[in-house]
């Protein structure tokens, strides 16, 4: 993930013309939709400058951008005159001004990762045990954390289904309570029921496979028939997919049975260690 290291200020103070509501809206919307942060300061308003670089745009007197500098030296100021420029041209001007430095762009990447509601999380570590992609970890204080956002599979909210407390949100998800809507008692009951389903079909899949193995003595690592295990895993995960919990592309990108076994064992060990640390 790449961050823009600046914000844009729509300046309408002394030495410039007021933009007017429509133009202000069109320019703001165009810049926001391109991924930029935009501040608007009216006459006499106080600007909260929280960034180290600021591009100040405005319709300056004589259509000439003034040279400005922060007297305190804390902020790098760049000015751009946007007189007579349409919103698309303003966006292009900003692109040129920032020198084409790489940044995230709407439409090319989706911020998809679990957000923990710690007012609900009981630190049970079910999510950590469940996730095969090392998204979750444990803090030095033994608290569950989202540690590797980038590992999360876009549009996959499956881990939220194994949370018995409905504490895992994906704000970009379409429906509640996963998207952050208030959690009702009905939600909690339903989610707990889904946990049971998940435990049967996916959450505790490895245990199920283990139980079904002929000798029932070993963990998944000693599954005698890897192809059978793979087939069973796919069957179970396909059921999860049918319920809308796992996107097809995530299913398609699942690692080999051996790798799943390794990751599941690792995750379970992390969870177990964290749980023991709580005691």
């Amino acid at each position, binding site marked *: 993930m790449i961050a823009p290291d600046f914000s844009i200020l729509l300046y309408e103070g002394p030495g410039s013309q007021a933009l007017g509501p429509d133009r202000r809206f069109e320019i703001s919307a165009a810049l*926001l939709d391109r991924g930029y*942060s935009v501040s608007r*300061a009216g006459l006499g308003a106080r600007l909260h400058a929280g960034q180290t670089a600021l591009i100040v745009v405005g319709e300056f007197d004589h259509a000439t951008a003034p040279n400005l500098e922060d007297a305190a030296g804390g902020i790098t100021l760049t000015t751009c005159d946007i007189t007579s420029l349409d919103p698309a041209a303003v966006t292009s001007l900003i692109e040129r001004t920032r020198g084409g430095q790489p940044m995230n762009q709407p439409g090319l990447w989706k911020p998809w990762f679990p957000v923990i509601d710690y007012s609900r999380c009981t630190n049970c570590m079910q999510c950590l045990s469940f996730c095969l992609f090392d998204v979750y970890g444990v803090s030095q204080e033994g608290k569950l954390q989202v540690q590797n956002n980038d590992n999360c599979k876009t549009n996959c909210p499956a881990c939220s289904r194994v949370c018995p407390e409905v504490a895992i949100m994906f*704000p970009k998800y379409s429906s509640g309570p996963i998207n952050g809507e208030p959690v009702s008692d009905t939600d909690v009951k339903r989610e707990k029921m889904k946990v049971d389903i998940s435990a049967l079909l996916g959450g505790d899949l490895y245990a199920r496979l283990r139980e079904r193995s002929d000798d029932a003595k070993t963990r998944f690592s000693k599954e005698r028939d890897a192809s059978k295990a793979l087939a069973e895993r796919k069957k179970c995960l396909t059921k999860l997919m049918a319920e809308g919990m796992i996107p097809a592309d995530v299913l398609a990108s699942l690692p080999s049975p051996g790798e799943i076994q390794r990751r599941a064992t690792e995750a379970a060990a992390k969870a177990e260690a964290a749980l023991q640390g709580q005691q």
Partner: protein
Amino acid sequence: MSDLVPPSPEPRLLYCRCAYAQVLPQDVKDGVLRHLCTSGQPFESVADLCEMSARRDPRLATLASSPLKIVACHPRAVKWLFHAAGAPIPDETPIVNLRSLTTEEACKTLT
């Protein structure tokens, strides 16, 4: 440009465009942004709070360091997005939910 001063104690409006996903109704987010642009009041706007939280943008901590009124989506999500970025906001921070309100309802909360 000499008005780069410490933030006012008055809650500042922070508008989230949710530009990285289409989960906010376009007419509502456009209508509210237009309202803000028409009202003449200063405001901060960000392309997407989720995107900023995902990369722990330090600007979130700066924003959270003074009273805010946030115009975004579900309050539970917004609160914990800030927390996830290491920039917790007070529980009493007002959050206007553009996922559940109409444009008119949302704008009424801003006047």
